[in-house]
């Protein structure tokens, strides 16, 4: 198909030349390595042929041709429709390190004209997004804060963490279940293990499971993802071992139901109605199922502790559960329950991050206010917001 069209075009071009008409070429043709990519791509840009806007001859299309020598045999890569004024074409099939030349051909009805070739140009992979410097600074700073306080904690520095009511209640809930001789139900959310909230939930499960093993209550963990189930089994086994009760570990109590959101909810509701747990934990990523679980849990009289960073589901847990860990508190829970210095240290690092953010917010608000009166700093208008644009 392509070769047929090409053949037809050669004939037309010859015919037009014979009639002595002219078609002006595209202007300002330039080729450069496509910025910020993994290589393998060159961007060709040009301006419209002067004939395009009401000239003698009409431009039907701009064709982009490529060769490895300026005078070499050009191969057609593709074409772009006219009508825009300035054009861009991305050659995605360039090999890294090879020098290329690009020609833009303005194709008219009866003839075509080539612009002078642009090049040589090489495709390369870039090693840094300059626009993302702010993200890099933020990442490095936060990481540094967290690591600094972890090392402080390791060195034996006393670290204070405020009371988190929801976590104080964990022991009470487990104790109650033990007294009543009923199981504890732990729902680690419905996301898979690549979700950090699930990972947080599973690490908290480890701390809770140690407590449960010590109290000798039963623990039920229905999972909606195989990977979560597998991880939960490892974590709970380890917890029972740590508590010196490896015999009490029941692998079959940490079970998979289904990946399906509502199928899973139906299953967990069934477990609640029949096993009648005295304490329910809902920690991790939750979507609509939050309230179905929490209301069913309430109807069987269980004490309920929830925690999620999903802003849309927090209201339901707040309304239907006894205690709710809000957002960041979920991520603090594992550190809080274990009291392990290294984990506590990372919490303090987070707090320092928060202080910096608050300082930025206040400084930004002040400068936004001043900017209205045309205040300038270092000869530039002071707009802190520019620092937070990530491309």
């Amino acid at each position: 198909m392509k070769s047929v069209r090409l053949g037809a075009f050669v004939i037309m071009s010859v015919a037009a030349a014979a009639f002595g008409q002219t078609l002006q070429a595209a202007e300002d043709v330039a080729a450069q390595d496509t910025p910020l990519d993994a290589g393998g791509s060159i961007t060709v840009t040009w301006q419209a042929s002067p004939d395009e806007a009401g000239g003698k001859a009409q431009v039907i299309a701009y064709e982009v041709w490529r060769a490895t020598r300026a005078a070499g045999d050009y191969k057609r890569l593709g074409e772009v429709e006219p009508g825009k004024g300035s054009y861009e074409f991305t050659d995605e099939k360039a090999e890294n390190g090879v020098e290329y030349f690009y020609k833009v051909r303005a194709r008219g009805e009866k003839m075509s004209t080539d612009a002078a070739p642009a090049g040589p140009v090489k495709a390369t992979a870039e090693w840094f997004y300059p626009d993302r410097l702010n993200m890099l600074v933020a990442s490095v700073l936060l990481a540094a804060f967290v690591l600094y306080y972890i090392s402080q904690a390791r060195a034996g520095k006393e670290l204070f963490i405020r009371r988190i009511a929801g976590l104080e209640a964990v022991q009470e809930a487990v104790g109650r279940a033990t007294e009543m001789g009923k199981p504890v139900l732990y729902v680690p959310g419905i996301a898979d293990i690549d979700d950090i909230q699930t990972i947080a939930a599973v690490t908290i499960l480890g701390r809770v499971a140690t407590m449960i093993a010590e109290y000798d209550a039963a623990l039920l963990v229905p999972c909606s993802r195989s990977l979560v189930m597998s991880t939960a089994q490892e974590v709970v086994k380890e917890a029972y071992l740590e508590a010196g009760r490896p015999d009490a570990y029941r692998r079959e109590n940490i079970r998979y139901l289904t990946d399906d959101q509502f199928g899973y909810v139906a299953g967990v509701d069934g477990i609640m109605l029949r096993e009648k747990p005295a304490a329910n934990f809902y920690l991790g990523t939750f979507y609509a199922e939050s309230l179905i679980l929490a209301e069913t849990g309430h109807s069987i009289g269980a004490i309920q502790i929830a925690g999620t960073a999903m802003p849309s589901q927090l209201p339901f847990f707040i309304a239907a559960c006894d205690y709710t860990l809000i957002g960041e508190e979920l991520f603090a829970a594992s550190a809080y329950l274990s009291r392990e210095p290294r984990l506590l240290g990372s919490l303090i690092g987070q707090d320092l991050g928060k202080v910096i953010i608050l300082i930025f917010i206040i400084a930004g608000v002040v400068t936004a206010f001043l900017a209205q009166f045309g205040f300038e700093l270092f000869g530039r208008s002071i707009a802190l917001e520019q620092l937070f644009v990530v491309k």
Partner: protein
Amino acid sequence: MRREIPMIVAFVAGVIIILEFFVPALRSVAAQIQKWYLVVIAFAILVGAFNLLRINYMKIRRRRADWPYSIPLIAGLFAMAIIGIGWGIEEGTVFDWLFNYLIFPMSSTVFALLAFFVASAAYRAFRARTVDATLLLVAAVVVMLGQVPIGSAWVPPWWPDWLVFLTPDWLKDRIMDIFNTAGQRAILIGASLGVVSTSLRILLGIERSYLGEE
């Protein structure tokens, strides 16, 4: 060694993904390993399915309470999996029919249970016991009224503009724009710090309980 090498695997995978954000050259590498994860999930689901089947099989064999219900479970699982893998899952297949007339109605009915639970939770929780509960209650009622046409139906057409702040419509928009944005934003920022430090702890092997015992 049973923990160290997996920890290195986790570290390498995570660091590549983080670096890819800053280093364009790593893009295809990162895209590749993200695909690998999909393969791991595909294998893992077999583990889950086996677990589900085993527990229900044991239930039937040992005639535990409610054992007869395990039969439709096992039959349903095999039917769906075999039909889907064997004959495809596109529109118009048996698999699609089963989805439309078995899974979909049950799924959306479980979802719809929320209409009832929203009411019962509101009835129980929205009582003006404390300042917190009162704020929760007032905001919820105002927004609920502002949401539906009937909420502002009592406002007469000649209602003066300077009293607009007394209409549920207006109040709802302000509450959503100001209070809701403020609250959600604080949660988002706070949680992101928690996520960053949790990620770091995992990648650096400080938090490793997910790997189980030594």
